[in-house]
């Protein structure tokens, strides 16, 4: 009998430790804005996405981001259709993702702005590339805001633009990411 009590004791201690630790080591996205710009001779194109989801786990500095391609909103409906059907083929590749580690000094429990890097796998249009991003983590109370800006080369991810519309779409797309995190509670 005393072994059973002992076992339950150990288990509960383990459970509490696990629970207690988890509530302060994981952060989830509460709001997000991903914007991309394409500056081309004929036409400037801009699209916005507010459905991006992300987790940060401080125990192992890991970060994951998922950007649903169909949630990019364009000014023109036809552009949105071409973007999804012809260029990013979003029925086949519904999400762009990043999965990696945060590198640099930061403390999500202390207010401040931290310059960090993130290194890992960036997947777009089904093509995975190892990439390093520079950005900032701004901590204000419980809230953490991530900001980053980078370029994506279309040919890196096998995104083909037909010659006819070549003048309308830049080969290099600028992407801006802004995500606000809060401590994750399940």
């Amino acid at each position, binding site marked *: 009998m005393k*072994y*059973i009590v002992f*076992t339950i004791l*150990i*288990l509960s201690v*383990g*459970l509490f430790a*696990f629970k207690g630790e*988890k509530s302060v080591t994981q952060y*989830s996205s509460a709001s997000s804005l991903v914007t991309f710009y394409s500056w081309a001779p004929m036409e400037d194109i801009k699209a916005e996405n507010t*459905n991006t*989801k*992300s*987790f940060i*786990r401080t*125990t*192992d500095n*890991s*970060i*994951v981001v*998922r950007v*649903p391609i*169909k*949630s990019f909103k364009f*000014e*023109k*409906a*036809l552009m949105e*259709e*071409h973007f*999804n*059907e*012809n260029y990013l*083929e*979003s*029925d*086949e590749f*519904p*999400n762009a*993702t990043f*999965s990696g580690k945060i590198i640099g000094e930061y403390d999500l429990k202390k207010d401040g702005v931290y310059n960090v890097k993130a290194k890992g796998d960036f997947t777009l249009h089904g093509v995975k590339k190892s990439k390093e991003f520079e950005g900032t983590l701004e901590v204000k109370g419980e809230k953490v805001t991530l900001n980053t800006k980078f370029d994506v080369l279309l040919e890196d991810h096998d995104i*083909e633009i*037909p010659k*006819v*519309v070549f003048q*309308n779409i830049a080969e290099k797309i600028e992407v801006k990411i802004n995500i606000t995190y809060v401590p994750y509670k*399940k």
Partner: protein
Amino acid sequence: MTKRNSLLATAIFLLFSFSVFGQDDLMDMLNDEVPDEAAEVMATFKAIKIINAQSIETTKKNNLDFRITHRFGNIGGGGHTLFGLDQAQDVRLSFDYGLTDNLSIGIGRSKVQEHVDGSIKFAFLKQKKDHMPITAVIYSDMAISAQKSDTVSYSPYYEEFGHRITYVTHLIVARKFNKSISVEILPTWVHRNKIDYAVNADNGAEEQNDIFALGFGARVKITKRMAIVADYFLIMSDFRKDNSANSFADPLAIGIEIETGGHVFHINLTNASGILENNYLPYTQDSWSDGGYKLGFNISRVFDL
């Protein structure tokens, strides 16, 4: 194993499984706990019409789709009409406008029967990956024939304004099976306010004001910008079946669809008599088997207003 050992083993196992859970892949965790919202399937068809048949696509919000549709004469006409190219069996100009992304209205004018028509199209179900297998649309139009009433030959003879009006209603159900294959069916009801009395001498069936039909349409993409399209209507009318004195045919069309930026271009072959449903559903009499098919094209230009 003693009781004591087994308990210890259980405890260790349980603790171990907790710690494993804690190291789960973060991406899997994100996908499990914050699932992807279901997105609507896009571009089941590329234009609001396949060839003769309406597709489930509606004109998107604030967009204006200007369409020029042309059907040459019968290819069976041979060299004397340059295989129909000398003739214009039907010409139609139309404008469709999107009130919302799921509701559009249209107006058009056709050469055959001098039809002036208005239509409304509403998508009430959208195919979503893993959530909704189909897209469903209701389409309805009303066409007024502006032809001069002929009191000598009585063809056409309109005693009153209402006689000029015909209606077509489709329920359209479509599914995009994968990125290249889309299929739809169109249960259809045609109502004509006025018909001329006629009997099929072969089976005794009378001509009816109401005709039901079942349409089928498909699009198969062969390259990123090109597709093969086809549509067919099975006309369910006893009067039209095996009518040796006045033969009718089911409209069938096959074509190639080419997309270039804001334009969608079709080249097609069809035996349909006219371009508007109100005409080709009840009045198609040319048959594929005796050269009764014609070359045609559609040009659609979408303007973002």
